[in-house]
């Protein structure tokens, strides 16, 4: 093996390790919602882990700033909600969870995920 092969291999393994760490080992930041929480939709959902109260109506207000059609819909499967998010406009989704637990909200194609933690 020549020097360039060794360098390419080491860099390659390093990059793979970095990708694993960067994408798959991230920690989600969690926010606790009041009656209302604003969620910005841009390359994902921020915040994407939201703690909400059980038995209370919480309004999730989605504002899509990302023109990618991947994020044009938001789906909250457990609450049977599928909504189109027009660009740069706010769409409100009201949910009233009766059971504690974790529920997800995702984009129309299931590529982007957010989590609702009901306590």
């Amino acid at each position: 093996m020549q020097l360039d092969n060794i360098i390419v291999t080491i860099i390659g393994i390093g990059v793979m390790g970095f990708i694993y760490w960067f994408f798959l080992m991230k920690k989600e930041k969690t926010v606790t919602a009041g009656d209302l929480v604003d969620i910005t939709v841009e390359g994902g959902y921020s915040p994407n882990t939201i703690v909400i109260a059980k038995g209370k109506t919480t309004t999730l207000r989605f504002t899509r700033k990302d023109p990618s059609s991947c994020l044009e819909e938001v789906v909250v499967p457990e609450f049977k909600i599928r909504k189109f998010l027009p660009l740069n406009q706010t769409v409100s989704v009201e949910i009233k969870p009766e059971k504690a637990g974790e529920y997800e909200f995702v984009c129309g194609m299931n590529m982007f995920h957010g989590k609702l933690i009901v306590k």
Partner: protein
Amino acid sequence: MSESKKTFSIKGMHCASCVTMLERALKQIDGVSQANVNLATEKATVSYDPQKVTDKHLESAVSNVGYQAMIGEELKSEDGEQKEKQKELKDLRVKVIVSLVLGGLILWGSFPGLMKSAPMFLQNFWVQLFLAAPVQFWAGFGFYRATLSALKHRSANMDTLVAMGTTVAFGYSAFVTIMPSVVERAGIEPMPYFDVSTIIIGLILLGRYFEAKAKAGTSEAIKKLIGLQAKTARVVRDGKEIDLPINEVEIGDHIRVRPGEKIPVDGIIVEGESSIDESMVTGESMPADKTKDDVVVGATMNKTGSFIFKATKVGQETMLAQIIKLVQEAQGSKAPIQRIADLISSYFVPIVIMLAVATFVVWYNFGPADRALLFAILNTVAVLIIACPCAMGLATPTAIMVGTGKGAEHGILIKDAESLETAHKINTIVFDKTGTLTVGKPEVTDIISVNHLKSEELLRLAASIEKGSEHSLAEAIVKKAEEEKIAISKAESFQAIPGHGVEGNVDGVKIFFGNRRLMEREKVTITDEQNNQIIKLENDGKTVMMLAANGALSGLIAVADIIKDTAKDGLAALKALGIEVVMITGDNQRTAAAIGAKLGITRVLAEVLPDQKEAEVKKIQAEGKVVAMVGDGINDAPALAAADVGIAMGSGTDVAIEAADITLINKDLRSVAAAVVLSKKTMRTIKMNLFWAFAYNIILIPVAMGVLYPFFQLLLSPIFASVAMATSSISVVANSLLLKRKNII
């Protein structure tokens, strides 16, 4: 003091200092207790006393400091969606055309074999760079933007893969063009691959274009339903007829409908009669004749007559609005089968990127000596481009959307994706008899006197004593007496004996009227001949009631419920699907068996009291069967809930949506089999889609990595990779759309 809270957008914000300024301005309004402004979302949230503060106050406070408040501007999502989609499609089309034309020119000037016929300038690398740059950075700009915003969240998607793949191809080509000598010194022929980067972008955008068009088709059913709504109603107010927009119609309004007009809301006819085509809402194919006191459904079509009806349900309460809501909810729910696709797609993109890096390293180290770098680059690009997480993401939801939409068109409302999925496993269906297999309106068929009493007198006594009863059979007898114009006497000391019948005095005569159990209890003798008569009637599927006057049997009245004319076909269709049919009823064994025989049902559960139905369903489930229960949804709610799939057959506008997994709005029994067929076909489509999406990625990613090269010297060109990628997600959507064409009845 009750406080209100309001959130609204603010236009013109661009820095953190705007936030402080706006908050201060809002807080200065008298009555505002709190104001929060968010720069990221460009929104203000204000808590205020609604008695003191109006929208105007807020607006002027914001505009005084140089911004614009957008209060009450929460969108009309339907309109916005339409417009935005169209604009998006138009943009996409321009980008596709430009990229493919420029890409085609570059290909002409660089593809071995073709390039000889191309003008010299197209073969110039600098010209190619010049043509490829706008495709990469203008047409492909969306990929970069999406990648960057995803990276901010440490996530990656489809766009990330395309952006990386094309950037590698473009970057290498640009390097070769600008510094050919460096590449040459490394022993590689300085050959750019601008055709790869441009055509990949063109084809993937083309794929998106078709995908967007096809996806619009999956939600067509909802749009059709929304389009059914009438726009105006001709309301009779103060003796005058005025045309009002539909949202101004109130409950209790009298509305005139003329021939050929659409009925605007739900209601009851108060005057006139007509034939009404309800197919658009209930899926029922025959027009229904309606007259005074009949129920009409909004959005159905009045055919011949003219009538006035009283509005009973308006706005979100109408049947159509409920159907739309239900279908929308079902389309937002998730089928359990999707879970595995979810799990995989959340790891998919990062893993593909790692595989691409590994591909580069392996080819660089072990590729053919003279072309190691080149192959390493091209194969890395191919891996990045061919991976298609979209197909996996689209496989289930598109099929669910088309399936639930198709159901709604046929009057089959499915509560959620899970119900649709379970329905394909049903192997036993339990039918409640009355009102489901039968019309639910029993009629008197035989009046038989067994002593000196005339049959007229028999009916008079029976009707008199039943007048006070609420039993459905009583209703049939009273109705019969009214039809025969028989004067009914008042019964005294009337008493209902549950599960037996009734007793009381009519014109001084002590009467017992009820079933065999009542006669046995009262020790009324039934002779063998009389008994044979009863058995004969029961064997015909009739319910026999016996009347005893002064302790002796006087006569028999037989009542029968008419079997629905769609029952035979409906049950035959279920049998053809290999599903066992069970009938459950409160009738006695013989009557139940006779009706069962008429319908070809062998398993009949008779003499089941209403509160035992649930237990019977559970018993069948304990045999290991997947059970659906079909009932009217009101009395059967516990049994419907206990079944694996509860199917409610609607009656008129009373859609008992909550209790059932599937609601059939029409009374056509063939819809039960249709619902099962729909579920089977939808599940087949989902499975095909998932198989295709998984197999595609599992097979083609290794091919793109070059696993076939050691054996067949075969490599996948990145251009073919982009063709395959674009086709794979379109084919999944197209396969879901095929469901629309399948026959379910």
